[in-house]
């Protein structure tokens, strides 16, 4: 590649500068060094993942050094990991849990942010900070009373119980994003026409305001979807049956294997399987992942 860029600059020599070749040579060397640096950093950063991938593609009892990369290529370890974690079922459970939670978060957070952004009063400001304050409280801390309360309220411990916590924990950040976006990005005037046409508040919100919130909705779906999909903690607390476990909870079953080198190939295959759905989603929807992450960053 350094040759290529060199050729490019050679094709368009700059007649006003005299030491053309020296400048270009310096550029080319700098460019090559940068490229080398990037590759080195990437290798350093991702080497654990590459080794895990390579070892996962071996037979379960191939115990040769994992550092010898890609010396075997079989899905035998995947097969046994697939069966041990009941992948199909766990995957479906993850989809259901994450799907329902994210839909509820979007509806609740978007609605709650509407008055917080539109009404300018002490109360709406208080509400905004009230939600935001929840961001600093760790879920593990309130778990003790929550478990008590859920038992006390006789809410059955089902596969769907964690949704209550997923929605609640997602509210602070989501309302923060929505409120900021409505305040700065959706002018009052867009609602005036609808108001004159006699649309009620509810219609006005869902058919005029909500569609304009698409960038934040994507951001909320991505940021909250990732943590909910990956969460093992609330699942671990409320779900006890293997048949109801989502993917990260199914991974907990491999906890004992992390210290046991003879089980590594299967463990690594399970790790890849667990991460695969999000990796696939990321490779197709990359633009939204990155955009979703930065909506809050640039606006907030």
């Amino acid at each position, binding site marked *: 590649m350094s040759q290529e860029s060199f050729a490019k600059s050679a094709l368009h020599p700059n007649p006003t500068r005299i030491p053309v070749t020296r400048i270009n040579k310096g550029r080319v060397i700098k460019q090559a060094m*940068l490229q080398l*640096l*990037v590759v080195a*950093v*990437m290798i350093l*950063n*991702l080497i*654990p*993942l590459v*080794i*895990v991938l390579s070892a996962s593609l071996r037979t379960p009892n191939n115990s040769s050094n994992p*550092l010898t990369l890609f010396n075997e290529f079989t899905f035998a370890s995947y097969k046994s990991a697939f069966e041990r974690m009941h992948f199909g079922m766990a995957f479906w459970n993850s989809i259901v849990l994450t799907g329902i939670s994210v839909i509820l978060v979007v509806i609740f*957070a978007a*609605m*709650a942010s*509407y*008055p917080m952004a*539109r*009404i300018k009063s002490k*109360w709406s400001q208080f*509400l905004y900070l009230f939600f935001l*304050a*929840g*961001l*600093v*409280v*760790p879920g*593990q*801390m309130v*778990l*003790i*009373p*929550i478990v008590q*309360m859920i038992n006390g309220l006789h809410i059955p411990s089902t596969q769907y119980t964690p949704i*209550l*916590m997923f929605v*609640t*924990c997602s509210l602070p950040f989501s309302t923060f994003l929505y409120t900021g976006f409505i305040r700065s990005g959706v002018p009052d005037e867009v*609602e*005036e026409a609808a*108001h004159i046409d006699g649309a009620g*508040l509810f219609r006005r919100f869902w058919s005029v305001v909500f569609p304009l919130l698409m960038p934040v909705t994507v951001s909320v779906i991505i940021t909250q979807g*990732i943590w909910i999909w*990956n969460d*093992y903690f609330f699942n671990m607390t409320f779900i006890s049956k293997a048949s109801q476990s989502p993917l990260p909870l199914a*991974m907990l079953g491999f906890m004992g294997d*992390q210290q046991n080198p003879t089980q*590594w190939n299967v463990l*690594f295959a399970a*790790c890849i399987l*667990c*991460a695969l759905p*999000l*990796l696939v989603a*990321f*490779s197709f929807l990359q633009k939204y*992942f990155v955009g979703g*992450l930065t909506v809050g*960053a*640039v606006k907030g």
Partner: protein
Amino acid sequence: MNSTVMKKTMYFFAVPALLFYCIFWIFPILKLFQYSITDFNGYAQNFKYVGLSNFKDLFEGGTLGNSIKNTLIYTAISVIAGNLIGLALALLLNQNIKGKGFYRSISYIPTLFSAIVVGFIWSYVYMPDSGMIATLFAKLGLPTDNLNFLGSYSSALYSIIFVEIWKNVGTTMIIFLAGLQTVPQDLLEAGKIDGCGTWKLLRFVKIPLLATSITINTTLSIINGLKAFDFPFIMTNGGPGDSTNTLIYSIYKMAFTEQMFGKASALGIISFFIIIVITAVTVLTMNKKEVSA
């Protein structure tokens, strides 16, 4: 806009979210205050009120001080190192390099992994004898006798902090990259004409313009660090000894393995105030700096 259009009835829109939030977040926090002055063990509902003795026990015992110390180390290192590495990565991938889009994407991959998967992978990396670092050292002919990252009292905490940074650096980088896109090109050109080198451009032009990104990243990683739980839970169980006991992990252990819900609640209350004070102070100072920058 007049108030007939923006009616107070709008507040009803907040009701579903408020219900969830109050029932499953605010009410439990208030309950925590109640439990903190009892000898509740998690099962028997006939618990007694014991006054402030839980707090007294905590202040006299070693757990509190040790957990606070570990949490502060965890937070400080993950905030400072995480942001520096993230910024360096962002600056590097903001250069004119071939395939930078690809490199940006793959740098983001670790953030997509569940903490439990990351914990498993790094347990392998750190494992003595057959782990990745140990075998790599052996191959290079370096001594491997003292390579017990997670097993030694002095290195375990730093080892899991590194994992935390590795997992989150992708997010930090993306936010810095977004910030770098807002740096106007002509400002950089002007700086160059005035004779600024790479370092001066970074220090006096780019960094001040990245103020918002820095605030966001710092705030997020402070909150993240103070809530540290995953890697002590998955990789070390707080050990060896109590060297990786963070505040939140100590609460969890006290409540669910030692069955001391009352005492754990008291520790929860203390953590609650520590987290709030530290977060509030940093956010306020960062905002002040951002305005003046």
